[in-house]
């Protein structure tokens, strides 16, 4: 059994099924991404993990201890181990940055008069000079840093991040993700990262689960999932990338490659096979230092050229597949 084990978690609100038998095994030190479109049930999942809601069915275990069931919310000592950060930051607007961090110590009963511990935490998130600022005087990224400092005050083993970077611009979002990564490395913080942004999950996570219509449709190490997503929703999330216009052409072929992106693939297809392909779309991801990518090619006369191309690709050990016409719409 994993460190944090979700077993057949279901949640229904009346007739509406929000989560349908979701099981997940998180190991200590994982940064586990949960990705899906909005309304897929991602937020409900984290809210069940830290007891903001109870599941209709299913159980959660932490270190083999049952912490959640339909009749049980995590006890206080467990909740302190599971901290959470939010899309809307959740900072008290009538308290300054320092007092917001101190709030966590007030709840755990460890509040110190001089707020030295809170000051140290603000320093850790590089906000020492803003301790007297109220949330209305901080930028989005700064607010999320305060929220992270407050979460760390609980000395958590697990950090739940519910769309924590969704309200931030790309650069700030990257900074927050880097901060989470460094906390993961430094203090071994296990992170469950909920997001609808593929680039956030791609940057930080070592494992990922794709949630669609209340169910986990696939999950596993991120390189497996990102290199060859099996589910329709996975394909559309990962391949679509920043491709804005849907591909409606029929005769398209997708080449998948990893780490081998420097071989002159297109030139070879043109010169060695004599097929005048045109590049429709190309997209690469960097995962743990390795480059994974896809290349979508259009063949001038599909039926004539496809066999030649397939032969060449199998010799070169390059994976390929036909692009289904509805997948990117």
């Amino acid at each position, binding site marked *: 059994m994993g460190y944090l084990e979700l077993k057949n978690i279901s949640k229904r609100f009346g007739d509406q099924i929000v989560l349908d038998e979701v099981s997940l095994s998180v190991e200590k030190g994982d940064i586990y991404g949960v990705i899906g479109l909005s309304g897929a049930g991602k937020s409900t999942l984290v809210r069940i993990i*830290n*007891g*903001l809601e109870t599941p209709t069915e299913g159980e959660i275990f932490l270190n083999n201890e049952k912490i959640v069931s339909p009749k049980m919310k995590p006890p*206080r*000592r467990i*909740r*302190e181990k*599971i*901290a*959470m950060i*939010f*899309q*809307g*930051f*959740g*900072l*008290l*607007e*009538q*308290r*300054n940055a320092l007092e917001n961090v101190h*709030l*966590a110590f*007030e*709840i*755990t009963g460890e509040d110190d008069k001089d707020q030295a511990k809170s000051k140290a935490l603000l320093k850790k998130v590089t906000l020492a000079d803003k301790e007297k600022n*109220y*949330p*209305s*005087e901080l930028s989005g990224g700064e607010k999320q840093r305060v*929220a992270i400092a*407050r979460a760390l005050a*609980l000395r958590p083993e697990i950090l*739940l991040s519910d769309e924590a970077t969704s309200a931030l611009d790309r650069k700030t979002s990257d900074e927050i993700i880097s901060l989470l990564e460094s906390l993961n490395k430094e203090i071994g913080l296990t992170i469950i990262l909920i997001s609808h942004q593929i680039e956030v999950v791609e940057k930080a996570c070592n494992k990922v689960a794709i949630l669609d219509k209340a169910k986990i449709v696939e999950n596993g190490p991120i390189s497996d999932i990102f290199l060859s997503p099996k589910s329709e929703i996975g394909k559309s999330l990962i391949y679509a990338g920043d491709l804005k216009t849907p591909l409606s052409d029929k005769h398209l072929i997708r080449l998948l490659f990893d780490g081998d992106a420097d071989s002159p693939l297109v030139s070879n297809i043109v010169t060695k096979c004599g097929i005048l392909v045109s590049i429709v779309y190309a997209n690469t991801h960097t995962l743990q230092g390795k480059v994974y990518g896809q290349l979508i090619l259009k063949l001038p006369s599909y039926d004539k050229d496809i066999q030649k191309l397939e032969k060449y690709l199998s010799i070169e050990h390059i994976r390929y597949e036909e692009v289904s016409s509805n997948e990117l719409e």
Partner: protein
Amino acid sequence: MNWSNLWTATYETLLMTIISSLLAYVIGIPLGVLLFMTSKNGPKPNKWVNIIVGGIVNILRSVPCMLLIIILLPLTRSLLGRGTGAWYTMLIPLFFASFPFVSRMVEQSLSEVKKDEIEALESMGASNLELVKKVLVPESKPSLISGFSVSTISILAYTSFAYDFGAGGLISRAYSFYSAHSGNYLSFPNVWIIILIVLIIVQLIQELGLYIAHKVDKRKVN
């Protein structure tokens, strides 16, 4: 009417208004908190508590103030020795007339606190009492303060009923002028002085409330 009469009337009005407002808030804050906490979208939904407390509040709110004073006469008499004829006999009926209203005002103020803030504390394992003390009340402080001035002004308006029960106050005094000189009461400067004093009191409560609410609010960028 001489100046000392005017002063007596002013302070009767002020005492009636301020003491019943404070009493209304002593009960109205906890009831408002209870109404918010137990509401359907509140942190601790509890249908029955909400229906019962909300029901009592709604029933009291729908009883006209005058009727409430009449119903409460025996209670006032048994507690204060007399039911009518002195400013303090209005305190009990004004309290009953205003605390339901205040409870709803408080509930409304608390419901303006962002859900994220409440959930952040819940996720840390905060108790209900901590939720109220650390988040709900401090975060809605500006709204509670401006609500307080709105309630106080309504209660001041309720003091008009003091006339019918000989309980004094500025508005009673103005009405006495009308009963005594119904033909030309507006030609007495004293009537206008009374109107002016009432206006000043209302404006003071209003502006002071807004000023303090703005002063304590940290949401603005300085």
